């Protein structure tokens, strides 16, 4: 494998549909072994970007380099380095799983000798061994999705592009597909698009948030977690305490009563008052029964980033 710093690099991608700008000047890159999450609400331009990366749609402007090969100049060579699973998995429902995968192996120019191994590998890695002789049309949606993933990894591509791989599945299937994606990520770089925040949290090393065709946020998952870090604690006591008493504790900016003996206190991000609260309640014998940092849900963070950008 040539030593390019980035396996996939997109520079200044733009794409219009009529007067609508679907994707506007989007640039990003992915390194070896990385899982990049593409996050955004529906209609934000995720699928359009994925289609451009896989060569299904030509960008109006910009450049896509895969393994250092320009996708627009040498499409065949560049496409050999990517595996793509569109939103609707492209499957021939009248074929059996192994027939279909054998066709995909041939389509991806896998030499005859390695074809059987490649098909067997893909079947095994995607957990399709039990259904390999069944017709694809008869399989459940979760299994069809697995066949779609198998199709994308059969030629051992450097980068696997998955467009909303868990949409339309039931919770158990979602969990299984996520597990599968995590296993795939051990051997390939993965670009994953989704509108589900926890999915990004579970699977990705880096996140990009896209909205209305523009990239709003590119950073590691840790930074996203910092966004999620809240500056509030939830407290519950067995005894009656006034809001003023809590306010008197160091670093607490504001406190409010939520229920009978439950309070929410906010503090400045760098000054965690937990220790102060603990020692104070010991001294005052306040019978503390609950102390919990309040965490923002990913949804809150998402909205926050969107708001900040506007």
């Amino acid at each position, binding site marked *: 494998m040539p030593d390019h710093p980035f396996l996939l690099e997109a520079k200044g991608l733009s794409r219009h549909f009529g007067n609508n700008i679907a994707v506007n000047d989007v640039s990003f890159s992915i390194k070896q072994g990385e899982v990049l999450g593409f996050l955004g609400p529906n209609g934000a331009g995720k699928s359009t970007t994925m289609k451009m990366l896989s060569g299904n749609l*030509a960008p109006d402007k910009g450049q896509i380099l895969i393994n250092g090969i320009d996708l627009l100049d040498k499409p065949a060579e560049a*496409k*050999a380095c990517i595996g*793509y699973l569109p939103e*609707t998995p*492209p499957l021939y*429902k009248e074929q059996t799983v192994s027939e279909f995968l054998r*066709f*995909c192996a041939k389509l*991806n120019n896998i030499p005859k000798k390695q074809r059987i191994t490649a098909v067997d590998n893909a079947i095994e890695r995607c957990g399709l061994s039990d259904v390999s002789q069944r017709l694809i049309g008869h399989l459940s949606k979760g299994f069809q999705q697995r066949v779609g993933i198998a199709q994308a990894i059969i030629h051992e591509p450097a980068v696997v592009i998955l467009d909303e791989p868990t949409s339309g599945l039931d919770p158990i299937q979602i969990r299984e597909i996520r597990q599968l994606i995590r296993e795939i990520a051990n051997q390939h770089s993965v670009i994953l698009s989704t509108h589900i925040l926890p999915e990004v949290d579970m699977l990705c090393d880096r996140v990009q948030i896209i909205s209305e065709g523009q990239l709003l946020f590119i950073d590691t998952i840790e930074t996203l977690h910092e966004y999620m870090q809240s500056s509030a604690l939830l407290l519950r006591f067995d005894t009656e305490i006034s809001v003023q008493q809590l306010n008197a504790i160091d670093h607490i900016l504001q406190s409010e009563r939520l229920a009978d003996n439950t309070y929410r206190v906010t503090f400045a991000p760098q000054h965690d008052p937990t220790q102060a609260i603990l020692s104070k309640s010991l001294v005052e014998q306040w019978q503390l029964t609950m102390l919990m940092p309040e965490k923002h849900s990913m949804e809150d963070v998402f909205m926050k980033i969107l708001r900040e950008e506007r």
Partner: protein
Amino acid sequence: MLTISQNELQRLFLSPLAWIILALSQLLLAYLFLTHMDYFNALQGKMSAIPGAPGVTELIAMPLLSNTGMICLLITPLLTMRTIAEERRNENLPLLISAPISIYKIVIGKFIGTLSFFLCLIVMTLLMVMSITLGSSLDWLQVLSGTLGLVLLVASFSVIGIYLSSLFKQPTVAAISSFALLFLLWIIDWASTNAAEFTLLSWLSLLRHFQPMVQGQMNSQDVAYFLIIIFAFLLLTIRRLDRERLD
């Protein structure tokens, strides 16, 4: 390229469509074959007296090949609508487009796949024609010229059907429009009243170029016409699919 045609053919035979088409067209052709045979038997007595009268090849084999051409015209839209329009509707095209294979190979692959199916049908018709040799003898060169004509005709049908299939998303729309265009090209020379006259309309007619070959005349003009049709529509289809990435 061959991978695609193989897959195309395999999927065709996995569906009942291919078998039903083959079975029913065989049934129709067998009936027509017997009708021609009957006709020949009725005329045989009178004709034996006339020197240079038409023989079995002219009266049975060649009409049967013409009939096959007509039946293929009816079948083509049903087959070609599957090639691109139905794949597009099922959102299967990205599989082919994101594979490291160029568009022209995809199109030619699909064309070869469809043509191979028709070759099966033609071979089965020829077997019927050959059964005549059990009781009589055939003019093999004329059969050969007719068969070549039929292959070229069917290839033109397929390529026109595939092009129209690449234009639409709904398979039925693709099928109806291919049928309309093929039928138009079949009958377009009815407008020219004088059969010997050479006009633009008669030049466009598929039938007008097919008929001489069935009669045993191999004109380079006719062969060129079919080849032009095949190349032109293949190019149009490739361009159409290539442009799809742009809009």
